[in-house]
């Protein structure tokens, strides 16, 4: 299962790799990373069919996670559409509503609860 993580914070990458160490080792999941919405869209152009799940930060310089979500839903409607989970430090009602309206499948708040995330992955 290929997962794309979009976050402007570079250190998110080793964090995910270590947290999913066992799963990666057992070839249950595979991670790719993008540091901005633009980079993510570029990546998806070629690989959208491979990516099952997109985890995106909302608050990023340049294209925001919500904009990225809008683009994903517009540009890649071919079924099955990727599952998109939004992640944000601002876990307020408005942010949640906006994300869900734009077509997010789930909404997670920082700090990320990796055990919860793993549970959610099992249901995919």
């Amino acid at each position, binding site marked *: 299962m290929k997962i794309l993580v979009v976050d402007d914070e570079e*250190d998110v990458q080793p*964090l995910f790799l*270590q947290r999913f160490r066992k799963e990666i080792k057992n070839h249950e999941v595979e991670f790719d990373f993008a540091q901005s919405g633009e980079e993510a869209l570029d990546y998806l152009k070629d690989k959208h069919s491979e990516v099952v799940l997109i985890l995106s930060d909302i608050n990023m310089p*340049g294209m925001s996670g919500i904009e990225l979500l809008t683009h994903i839903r517009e540009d890649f409607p071919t079924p099955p559409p990727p599952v998109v989970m939004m992640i944000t430090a601002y876990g307020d009602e408005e942010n949640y509503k*906006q994300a869900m309206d734009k077509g997010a499948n789930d909404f997670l708040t*920082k*700090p990320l609860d990796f055990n919860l995330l793993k549970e959610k992955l099992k249901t995919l």
Partner: protein
Amino acid sequence: MTFFTYAALFLLAIRLRRAIKLSPITAKWNAPLYGIALATVGVAFLLDDLLPNDEVEGIVIALVLLGVVEFLKREPDFKRFHVLINAHYPLIAAVILSNIVALISIKFYKKYDDYFQATQLAAFGWIFLRVATSKKQQSELKRISERKDELEILVAERTAEITKQRNELQETVKELQSTQAQLIQQEKLASLGELTAGIAHEIQNPLNFVNNFSEVSMELIEEMEEEMAKGDMEEATAIANDIKQNLEKIRHHGKRADGIVKGMLQHSRASSNVKEPTNLNTIADEYFRLAYHGLRAKDKSFNADLVTNFDPALPSINIVSQDVGRVLLNMFTNAFYAVHQKQKTVGGDFKPRVEVSTRTIKTPKGSEVEIVVKDNGSGIPDAIKDKIMQPFFTTKPAGEGTGLGLSLSYDIIVKAHKGHININSKEGEGSEFIITLPIA
């Protein structure tokens, strides 16, 4: 004929006494002048009995009058009565001359009796004439002195009024100074308020990393112990390396949060005014993010491209970092505000963009550090370009801006750091704020 001389002496004393009535010298001279007047009457009877003939009596009393006249003339108190006093000389002269002539040759005197008497009468009359003139002069002088008093009172009143006004103005200046100090403090607090959300976000991120990396490291240690128990030292060493890297990251993010908290405290604290070598790239980056997240937290629809072009070789410069940081924060907040305004009006395709760049420039006077804050926002209309540095000038709606940001920035950069602030702006296209600071 001695009667005229006595009368003249008596009247002189009486007139002077009346003239000085109600003046400051009354107390001193009232009694002596009254004495002279009474004495004149007494002496008249006394001399009439004592002296052998009228002629000698006439000369003696004329000399007495001369003595009194000379005495009065020497008194500075009677300076203004000189006209009256001097008027007695002709009478004295006429009386003495007539009597001496009579003593020398009574026959000659008797022959021209009428002339001598007429001369004395005329001299006596002269005194009255002079008295009238003197009175006129006196009243004129009195009028002038009254006018002078009036003017002096007026001047005193005006002076008091001006002094009062000056004191009031000084009070007002003091009040204004303390109000200004309060406003500066409020501006600091206001900008801190704008920052709070940004700060929370900026601290949350490193804290998440600290928590996550320490948690994952604990898991890694358990795994490492398992690997070691299995005897797979290679895998154990690989995990140990990961743990080492994680600890490094924990330290890095801990320091990041620490720096943000310190910066926040510095921002709200009164300026220490101590210039210290500072890396402008660091504070520019820090405040750039804080300003962005501050605005982001207030309005979630807002987004902008943050572009940084920091010169990695930028030398450290001596600045009061919290003050210059405040200036940068103000510039960033303004830039984000401008692009946000444009986004609201233009909407749709507009891509808000704020760029900060640093570089070193050579000038004839030496090297300078230049920081440019550039936005593609609403720009500054020409009509207000001259006003934006003025205190209390703001285009923001009431209650949103203090109007002190740029004014304080000017004080900090130009007055305190001997630098410059230049502005390039075109309405509708964007603005560029260029700050230069000397390296020294």
